[in-house]
C-alpha cells in the first residue's frame, strides 16, 4: 500500500537523522555543559596555581586524588543516591543526619563490643560495617514509608527526620565524641598485633581493617574489563552508538593505561566504593527497566500507575537507596577516623543537594543523571580545593559557591527554554 510505504520510508529517514543528531545532542552545551564547566574550572586553577609566588602543578596525581577523596565522603556518595531519589520525584533533607547516625552506630557497636560473640576481630569488623549500612538503610526506609503511607510531602517528612536522626545520634553518643576502638593497647593480645602487622600506640581501630588501598594496576584492569563488558551488553541490547563507543573506549584505555602503572601505586578503598556505586547506579538508571520505571514515577506518577507500574515500590525504594548510600558513606569515612563526633557532617545535606543541582537534576522529578551529579560534586570540591591552594578567603569561597549553585540552575533553565523555543528537544 502506497500510504504505508511512505510512512515507513519516512521513519527510516528520521531514524538516520536521529542517530547523527544523537551524537551532536549528547555533546551539546545543554547536555554536556557540566563536563565542560568542570574542565574549564580545572584549566583555570591549573593556570592560576602555576603563576603564583610558589607555583605548583595543580593537576598532580596527589592533588587529584585528594580532591576526589574529599568529594567522595560523604557528598559524592550520597549525591548518587540523592539523584536517584530526585529522579523519582522526592527529596531527602535528612541525609547528613542519617549518615552521622550510621557512623555513630558503628562507633558504638565497636566500642561496646556488640559483635564480640562472633569470635574473630575480622568478623566483628564486617558485622559492624553491615550494621552501619543497615542503620542508614532503615533511616531511608522510614522516610519512604512515612512519605508513602501517611501521604506527607517528602520535604516535610525529611525535615522532621533531619532533626530526629541528629537527636538520636546525640542520644546514643551521650553528647560526646566516641572512639572507634575495639581495644586499648593494654588489652591487645599477641594475635591482635599479628593481625595488624604492627603495633599501634592507641590500640586496635576499625580503620585498621577497612582502610588501606588497592593496587591501581588491578583496579584499572578490572574497570577496563567491566567497561568492555558493559559495551558488549549495550551492543546486544541495541543501544545508541555513542554511549557504547564511550564505554568501549574507556575500557580499552583503562586496560592500556594499567600496563604503564607502577605496581606499587595504590588507590584508597573509598574511591573503589565510589566508582563501583557510580557505575552500578549509572547502568541501572540508564540501561534497565528499573531505571526507566524510576524516571516514569518521577515524571508522571499517575501515568506510571495507569501503566501498571508498582508506584509504591518505585517511590519507596529510592529513599531506601539514599539511606544505603548514607550508610556506605559512614563506613568509608570511619576507615580513616579514630573517633566520631555527634555533630558530624552537620548541614552537609545542602552540599549534597548543591552537587545534584549543579549536575542539572530537576527538583520536579523525572530527569537527571547520576554521572552529572558526580561531576557536580567534583566541581564543588575542585572549587574548594583550588580556592584553598590559592588562599581565597572563606567568605569569598562561600559567596562564590552560593552564586555557582544558583547560576548553574539558571543556566539549565535557560538552556531548556532556548532549546524548546528552537523546537530542539
Amino acid at each position, binding site marked *: 500500500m502506497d*500510504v*504505508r510505504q511512505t*510512512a*515507513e520510508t*519516512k*521513519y527510516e529517514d*528520521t*531514524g538516520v537523522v*536521529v542517530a547523527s543528531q544523537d551524537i551532536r545532542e549528547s555533546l551539546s552545551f545543554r547536555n554536556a555543559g557540566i563536563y565542560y564547566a568542570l574542565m574549564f574550572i580545572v584549566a583555570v586553577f591549573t593556570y592560576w596555581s602555576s603563576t603564583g609566588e610558589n607555583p605548583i602543578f595543580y593537576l598532580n596525581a596527589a592533588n587529584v586524588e585528594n580532591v576526589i577523596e574529599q568529594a567522595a565522603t560523604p557528598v559524592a556518595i550520597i549525591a548518587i543516591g540523592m539523584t536517584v531519589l530526585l529522579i523519582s520525584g522526592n527529596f531527602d533533607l535528612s541525609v547528613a543526619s542519617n549518615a552521622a547516625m550510621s557512623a555513630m552506630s558503628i562507633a558504638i557497636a565497636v566500642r561496646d563490643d556488640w559483635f564480640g560473640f562472633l569470635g574473630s576481630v575480622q568478623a566483628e569488623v564486617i558485622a559492624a560495617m553491615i550494621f552501619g549500612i543497615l542503620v542508614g538503610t532503615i533511616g531511608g526506609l522510614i522516610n519512604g514509608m512515612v512519605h508513602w503511607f501517611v501521604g506527607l510531602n517528602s520535604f516535610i517528612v525529611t525535615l522532621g527526620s533531619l532533626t530526629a536522626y541528629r537527636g538520636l545520634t546525640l542520644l546514643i553518643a551521650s553528647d560526646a565524641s566516641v572512639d572507634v576502638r575495639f581495644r586499648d593497647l593494654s588489652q591487645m593480645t599477641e594475635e591482635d598485633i599479628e593481625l595488624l602487622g604492627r603495633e599501634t600506640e592507641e590500640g586496635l581501630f576499625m580503620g585498621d581493617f577497612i582502610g588501606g588501598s588497592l593496587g591501581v594496576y588491578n583496579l584499572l584492569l578490572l574497570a577496563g574489563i567491566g567497561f568492555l563488558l558493559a559495551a558488549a*551488553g549495550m551492543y*546486544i*541490547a*541495541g*543501544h*545508541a552508538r555513542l554511549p557504547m563507543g564511550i564505554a568501549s573506549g574507556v575500557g580499552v584505555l583503562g586496560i592500556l593505561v594499567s600496563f604503564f602503572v607502577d605496581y606499587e601505586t595504590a588507590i584508597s578503598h573509598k574511591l573503589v566504593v565510589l566508582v563501583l556505586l557510580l557505575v552500578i547506579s549509572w547502568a541501572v538508571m540508564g*540501561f*534497565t*527497566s*528499573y531505571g*526507566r*520505571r524510576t*524516571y*516514569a514515577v518521577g*515524571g*508522571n506518577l*499517575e*501515568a*506510571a*500507575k*495507569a*501503566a*501498571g*507500574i*508498582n508506584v509504591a515500590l518505585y517511590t519507596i525504594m529510592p529513599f531506601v537507596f539514599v539511606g544505603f548510600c548514607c550508610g556506605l558513606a559512614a563506613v568509608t569515612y570511619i576507615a580513616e577516623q579514630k573517633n566520631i563526633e555527634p555533630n558530624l557532617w552537620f548541614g552537609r545535606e545542602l552540599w549534597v543537594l548543591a552537587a545534584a543541582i549543579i549536575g542539572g537534576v530537576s527538583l520536579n522529578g*523525572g*530527569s537527571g543523571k547520576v554521572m552529572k551529579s558526580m561531576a557536580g560534586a567534583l566541581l564543588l570540591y575542585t572549587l574548594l580545593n583550588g580556592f584553598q591552594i590559592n588562599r581565597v578567603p572563606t567568605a569569598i569561597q562561600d559567596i562564590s559557591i552560593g552564586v555557582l549553585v544558583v547560576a548553574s540552575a539558571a543556566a539549565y533553565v535557560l538552556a531548556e527554554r532556548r532549546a*524548546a523555543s528552537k*523546537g530542539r*528537544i
Partner: protein
Amino acid sequence: MQTTSETVTLDPAAPVLQIRDVSKNFGAVQALKSVSFDITPGRITGLVGDNGAGKSTMVKIISGVHAPSSGEIVLEGRPTLFANPGEARAAKIETVFQTLELVEEFDVAENFYMGQELTRFGILRANRTGEMRAEAAKAVSKLGINIPGGVTRRVRTMSGGQRQAVAIARAAFWSTKVLLLDEPTAALGVRETAQVLSLIETLRDQGAAILLISHNMKDVERLCNDVVVLRQGRRSGFLTGDFTGQDCVSYITGAISDLDDEEL
C-alpha cells in the same frame, strides 16, 4: 509480545466484559449508581452523558484505577476485581484516559513500553531499546498515525493532538481484547479525527471490544453499535440498532429517560 495483528478467537456474540450494578462514591458524591452494561468483541459501545455524568469514573473502575464501591465486573464469565491498572493490562484491557497519562520526558517508544519493557539478562532487566524503538515505529506506521520526528521524539515537545495520537497508538499497540477510549478525539484536528475513527473501526474489525466515550454525537451515531447514556451517575438510557445522534441527545438532556423516578 502482543500486537494488533493478532486476532482474538472468541464467540463474537458473548460479551467479554459485563459491568454489573457498579456504584461508586467519592465521599458524599455518588458518581455512579448501579450501572450495568456489556462490552462485546467486534462491537463498539458508546458511553455518553453530560460533564460529570460519571463516564471517566466508569472507565477508571474498569481499568483498575478505582475500586467500585459496590457491584462487580465480569471478565469472560468470571467475576474479576482489578486491584491495580497493571492487572487490567495483564488481562489485555487497554485504556486511553481522558488525561492521556503520558510521561512528558519520555519519547514515544518509551511511553509505549512504560511498565511493559522488553528486557534481557533475566533479573538484570537490561532494556532492549533498539528493539522497542523498532517495534514502536512499526506499529506507528502500521496504524497510519503521523508522529513527526519518529518514535524518539519526546512527548514534551508535542502538541495536544499529537499526544492524543501517541496515547491511542499505545493502547491499540497493546490491546487485543478490550479498548477503553475516554474522549480519544477531543483534541484532534479534522484529518486526525478521521484517522482515529477509521483506526477504531479497524480494531473493531479485528475483534476488539471497544468502549468509546465521546461528546460528538455524529461520531457516536456513525461508529457505535450500542450506546449507554449516563445521567448524574445513573444509566438513563440504552440505544441499539437504528438510532440517531438526536436520540442520544434527548436521553443526555433528560428529555427522554428509562428511569421511572426521573424528575423532568
